[in-house]
């Protein structure tokens, strides 16, 4: 399940949804809003998404990961809206029989989400200026611009 959410996540509920009797490992990744980027102090972030396609592409990423890493479950939630320093921006949780697959899948999913899902981030700086973060879009019909992982 991949969801774009304008409101905070209920982490207990997401964790319960991943419960599986064969699972020996649950790995999670929490992406947080940090107070700097590329040497600039950041006061807050604003995320927006093209929701219908973001949720489709996100679901494809989770499906690919389930198959590639033999996962028992995979969930990713991504926030939209205005977030403060320390807020949770993205949450990935996966279950697998063993920890290696769970760790690897978690990393794979967040990397793919950052490269492929139509979500944008505007940084608001101390002093009032703001700018859209120039990541890169990777995909079949995109140019081969190297991803700029934050």
């Amino acid at each position, binding site marked *: 399940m991949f969801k774009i959410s304008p409101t905070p996540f209920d982490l207990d509920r997401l964790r319960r949804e991943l419960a599986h009797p064969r699972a020996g490992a649950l790995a999670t990744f929490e992406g947080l809003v940090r107070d700097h980027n590329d040497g600039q102090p950041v006061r807050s972030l604003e995320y927006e998404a093209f929701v219908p396609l973001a949720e489709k592409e996100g679901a494809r990423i989770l499906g690919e990961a389930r198959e590639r890493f033999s996962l028992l479950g995979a969930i990713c939630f991504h926030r939209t809206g205005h977030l403060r320093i320390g807020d949770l921006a993205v949450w990935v949780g996966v279950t697998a029989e063993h920890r290696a697959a769970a760790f690897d899948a978690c990393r794979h999913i967040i990397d793919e989400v950052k490269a492929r899902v139509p979500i944008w981030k505007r940084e608001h700086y101390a002093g009032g200026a703001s700018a859209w973060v120039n990541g890169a879009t990777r995909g079949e*019909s995109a140019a081969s611009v190297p991803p700029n992982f934050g």
Partner: protein
Amino acid sequence: MTKTIRVQYFALLRDQRGLADEKLATAADTPAGLYAELRARHGFTLPVEQLRVAMNDEFAPWDAPLHDGDALVFIPPVAGG
């Protein structure tokens, strides 16, 4: 032939267009042609090589045929996470 296309803008493109959404008439045959037309009209800074395009809520090739009533989104470089 002139078609009516709905275009939604996000992030930098929305700022540069000053709109989130519009319906427009175009003679362009492909998303690539329409982006070139809009870029010339509105001064978009992003070259087409840095974008992807979605047609009717799914990724599409730049040379896909445009049909009357299609909904397009030009997708600037993404930055989730």
